[in-house]
């Protein structure tokens, strides 16, 4: 194999998981397993309804970088790149 081809193959192998696009719809479907889309009970998990994309994105980034304390969300937000969190926030705000 030519060096160039070999490098391309290597680059593809390395880069595929990193560049694999997430499906924001699927992630958002998982969000609402806890953040239900109607009235939460008292002292329940906060709702996402009515929040702007900007607010959701900022909260997710604050959870990810431990700027905002919470029980579970810091553990979730660390699973996504900043860009993925933006796409997810936009999807949630629109639906």
């Amino acid at each position, binding site marked *: 194999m030519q060096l160039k081809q070999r490098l391309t193959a290597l680059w593809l192998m390395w880069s595929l998981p990193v560049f*694999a696009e997430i499906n924001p719809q699927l992630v958002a479907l998982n969000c609402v397993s806890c953040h239900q889309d109607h009235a939460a009970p008292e002292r329940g998990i906060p709702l996402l309804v009515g929040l702007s994309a900007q607010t959701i994105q900022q909260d997710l980034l604050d959870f990810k970088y431990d700027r905002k304390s919470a029980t579970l969300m810091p553990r979730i937000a*660390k699973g996504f790149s900043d860009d993925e969190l933006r796409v997810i926030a936009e999807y949630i705000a629109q639906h």
Partner: protein
Amino acid sequence: MTAGAGVLSGCENVRHKNTMANVVVVGGGFGGATAAKTLRSLAADLNITLIEPKADYITCPGSNWLFAGLTSLPQLTVDYLALKQRHGIRLVTDSVKSIDRDRRRLRLTSGQDLAYDRLILSPGIAFQWDAISGYTAAMANVFPHAWQAGTQTTLLVRQLQAMPAGGVVLIVAPPDPYRCPPGPYERASMMAYWLKQHNPRAKIIILDPKRGFSKQALFEAGWRQHFRYGTADSLIEWHSLADNPITQLDAQTHTVISDFGDRFRGDVLNIIPAQTAATLASEASLTDKSGWCPVNPQTSQSLFDPYIHVIGDAAHFAPIPKSAFAANSEAKACAIAVYSLLNEQTASTANWLNICYSLITPEHGISVAGIYELDGEHAVAAVREAGGVSQVGSPELPILEADYARSAYQSLVNNSFR
């Protein structure tokens, strides 16, 4: 495998070009209900049938809370009316007798025959009755496993409450993998919470074939805080019998016996047997030698049949644990994949979320979370930077997590069934 599936799904779409495709979902637990509901949200005109023998479903999540008197069976019961009326799912109250994979037809117990273009199986678990000699299906009516919520759970609650003062509860925990990894330890916590008030000299002994368990450090810290764990008069003892597991039950003497002959006698015996995928899956030759159903995780298609998708506890999605939350998450990814396959589109990259809350007391909740994606080899892998168990520190966190445990339960039920 994947390429083959793609070609076959192409033929199928030609066949059904002018008709609506039939998707049949078998099993009305968290996996099946969520798959049917999510699929409907993606495709208004699809024929979606859910086959489930029970008219009502009693959730396993939350059922340990019965031991502490925190809930009731009616509160843990959901029906299928919303799926039927709000989401237009055709409900067939029946069970599947056999799957004719070649003809893509189901034979139901009532005798009815049902064709499918794609079948989503979420059949749950079966017990390995031969794993502990003497512990049979009939014996479970005397010494309940209570690992499928309902009459089994009620029986165990009654036995706990009727136990003599200073009595012993034995919990025989199952080997990995099994439904609800933190379940036996939440159960011990909830029993201890009740015993502390009503039978304070009693003891719960967990006999475990594993060397460790889910959320162990958090459970043990909670037990030390609330139940004198680690002291001579602890309400809970945990014994790892990894090299010497329980292999036998002597029903007459209420005794379980280990491989080397150690004997443990209890007043109440809760034996949770080793598990496999439900019988329906093994009878349809969808299981491998592990007893679970191997799948292509991206689409949840069985490795033995591209027209059958398997999700929930029966499917092998390790390292995703077998939980209701995970079944719900697998169902959503599966529904998107089924929709894509029916429409000859490339399925988007799947990912999954699991969250399991456990209560140690009504005011002390703990949690574990995991985010999962496909690795370079298309196998499921946990995202390393994410997930993990509750932080220890602030005294408000366990109280908040207990509230969230109840809230997440209600939300997951609504999300799956309503």
